[in-house]
């Protein structure tokens, strides 16, 4: 019953999945933030999409404000792409690859993430 996000990993031995938090920590159709070593990861949970249940992991820091707020934005879909709107200046980032629609030079890091039973697992290289 695992679904990973759109950044598909090349099959490789270096990738290891590690548990980040529990499924119950997620908020349906919205975001939460997890601590990953020294980084902040925004996790978005979409229980129902065209391709089934999906979870995305994307960097929490908004490049425009420098504040760690991406996890508190609104989820949406623009021209087919799932996006997160930053809550401060409302620019949109694609969940699949972290690209900013309004400022293409801004890109957020994304991580592969999956649900494994009750665990939310992230692939850290």
């Amino acid at each position, binding site marked *: 019953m695992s679904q990973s996000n759109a950044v598909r990993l090349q099959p490789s031995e270096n990738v290891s999945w590690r548990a980040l*938090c529990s499924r119950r920590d997620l908020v349906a159709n919205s975001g939460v933030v997890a*601590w990953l070593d020294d980084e902040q990861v925004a996790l978005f949970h979409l229980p129902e999409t065209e391709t089934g249940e999906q979870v995305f992991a994307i960097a929490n820091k*908004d490049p425009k404000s420098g504040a760690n*707020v991406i996890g508190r934005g*609104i989820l949406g879909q623009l021209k087919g792409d799932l996006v997160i709107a930053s809550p401060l200046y409302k620019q949109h980032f694609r969940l699949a690859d972290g690209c900013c629609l309004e400022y293409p030079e801004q890109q957020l890091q994304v991580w592969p993430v999956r649900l494994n039973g009750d665990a939310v697992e992230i692939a850290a290289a």
Partner: protein
Amino acid sequence: MNAIVTPIKSETLIVIGNGMVGHHCVEQLIERGALSQYQVHVYGEERQRAYDRVHLSEYFGGRDADSLAMCDADYYAAHGVHMHLGVQVLEIDRERKEVVTAEGRQPYDKLILATGSYPFVPPIPGAEGNSRLVYRTLDDLDAIRAAASNAKRGVVVGGGLLGLEAANALKSLGLEAHVVEFAPRLMPVQLDEEGGAALKSRIEALGVGVHLSRATQEIVIGEEYAYRMNFNDGEYLETDLIVFSAGIRPQDALARSAELEIAPRGGVVIDADYRTNDPSIFAIGECASWNAMVYGLVAPGYTMARNLAALLCGEPHQPFSGADMSTKLKLLGVDVGSIGDAHAATPGAKSYRFIDEANASYRRLVLSEDGKRVIGAVLIGDNSYYDTLLQYAQNGIKLPADPSSLILPLSDGAPTLGADALPDTATLCSCHNVTKGAVCCQVDAGITDLGELKAATKAGTGCGGCSALLKQVFEHELTARGVEVDKSLCEHFALTRQELYGIVRVEGIISFAELLAKHGRGHTGCDICKPAVGSILASCWNQPITDPGLIPLQDTNDTFMANMQKNGTYSVVPRIAGGEITPDKLIALGAVAKKYDLYTKITGGQRIDLFGAQLHELPEIWSELIEAGFETGHAYGKSLRTVKSCVGSTWCRYGVQDSVGMALRLEDRYKGLRSPHKIKFGVSGCTRECAEAQSKDIGVIATENGWNLYVAGNGGMRPRHAELFATDLDDETLIRYIDRFLMFYIRTADKLQRTSVWRESLEGGLDYLKEVVIDDSLNLAAELEAQMQLVVDRYECEWANAIKDPEKLKRFRTFVNDQRGDPDVHFVRERGQRRPAHAHELHLIPVTEEVL
């Protein structure tokens, strides 16, 4: 390196007068590049820069001098025009070609007189002070307002266009208004006898006294009111103030003393090139007399200004050949229209007339002797015929087989002159001389927005009389080019907010998913439609926004019920209804602020804002605030914010009602009401207005008999005074009207539209709003009140709701897998409190993510 060529400003041009026409002339000069050729000086006698005199009566309806101004405050300076406001020109020294002011002497090469006109006050013994007011400038209006503060009844002398405007102004100040006219009918210049009679009965129905064929012989001390006006027929009328509006006279005093040629009936004589008998001096607008005619309307003045500017720039221009005096207005809410030869004075002219005595409507169509052309018309009670008739008259369009159909009540089959029937040469906006062809050009150039069209052509920005026709032509041309006027909310809903609201109500939809499935596209929605629908659902059903199905719809501020600040921390504003707080609660608030080290500031809405809380601290902070008796203040929502109040009759020696009590009652009723945008209230205990209620969406001001209700004001980026909506209301009626007003706003406004913008966009304006809310013209009042009552009954403090529910609280964690706070949030201390650190104060901490 290129040499820099400084244009030599060889000539000095002086414009005397900064009214609408003088301003338009300068604007035209700027647009035509005259500033590279002329050094331009403008002298204005009034303190204010040019303002819109056509809409002067709106000054009492809430508009201030700034919003009436014809241009931005820095417009003249930005274009290098030397502006001398509040400076009277004392003399024109034609020999030395200099003007003399208190500032000194200023030489000129060319001079434009745009001094306008002044109100004529007949010499009546006893007319002085408050019995000799006039209605022309903003200062005049201030004087009228001051005089009205202690008055019950006001009289306007003069039943012409301006006199009726002035009567409207008195009425809007809450006075019993009367009009005294010398002629046997109202608006004798524009209307015929039947037209005048229809207008009279309409205006009397509004409670305005109309006294015709009366000449005032003297004004003496009154018995019941301050003054008594004794008429020539032995009758008298008592009043507290008198406004003279018995016509205007050209302001030609400067020209007279400079010994320029003056027309026998006043006005500086000009030729077709606007030149006086001194070739360096020109005159335009109401101070000029062409062919022994003075034109007292703005459109001919603009025509003169435009053509003179072209002439001075050496461009081709139209010699003046007279002007159309057709006019369309709403006087005291009554439609009045007059086109061309309204009196059928042209030899052989034939008329059709339609008289409806039941509804006091009257229409007259005047045709040429051969019956082939419209040469004039009179309309009372319904101006929807005006645009079509004017086009027939101005463009010589061939008449339908039965010309009477042009003024008969519209039935489905009646021929109306559609936008497509107009020739390209048809003038739509006569103030700015914009033709249908010019509008088509802009549509071809790609303009699809009415606002952009107005900005590009200026059409509809003069007297505004052409707005409806302009919109009609614009939309017709867009449709003709296959452009769909897109009013979709976003890519997920091809519907407007208003349509979605209707669907949610009618179909009883309570979730976003259901609405999207039935009426939208896609699975997810976006950050435009989600908050808009979230707001609609809350306005209709008022379910807790923290419910799992609703939470993903909310903007971050609503999601976490606090206001996100620039560094990602939140500010917290508990409700302090009416600004009233006990010492104990104040201490409790201080204790919480101190414990969590929150930056503390008093807000403009008489509340206290606590800044700098991290997400995980919000539940603890709110537990303590709720414990101390506070509830959420909705500072984060598009909803009722505060009801500001003064102490009122409880403490204040001037107070006439308990304003704090009313503020508490109102805030308690409407707290938690979600709406298209935020809503603010103010309640003042007397007319001194210490709560600044007139700058609020809902303003309530105490009177000796109850409450005056003001609506649709706001502060912010574009301040707007609230307009007087109803007077002397008792408590229950006040609340009923506010219920209806707010629910009607919620029902019909666009998303994120404040009440002020909504009100300005309402067709029919304030009068229409009054009909809906007060007269219940749409038969909606009971429904609106019931809808409001449901929202009121379902109120629950959102924070209290969330605190009880561990599932809802789990989102209030900075990290779901770690106890720490956000390590990137840094504060420094300033003036005894902490504030976010500036970027330069963080030497070692990168403030922006590096681009990958």
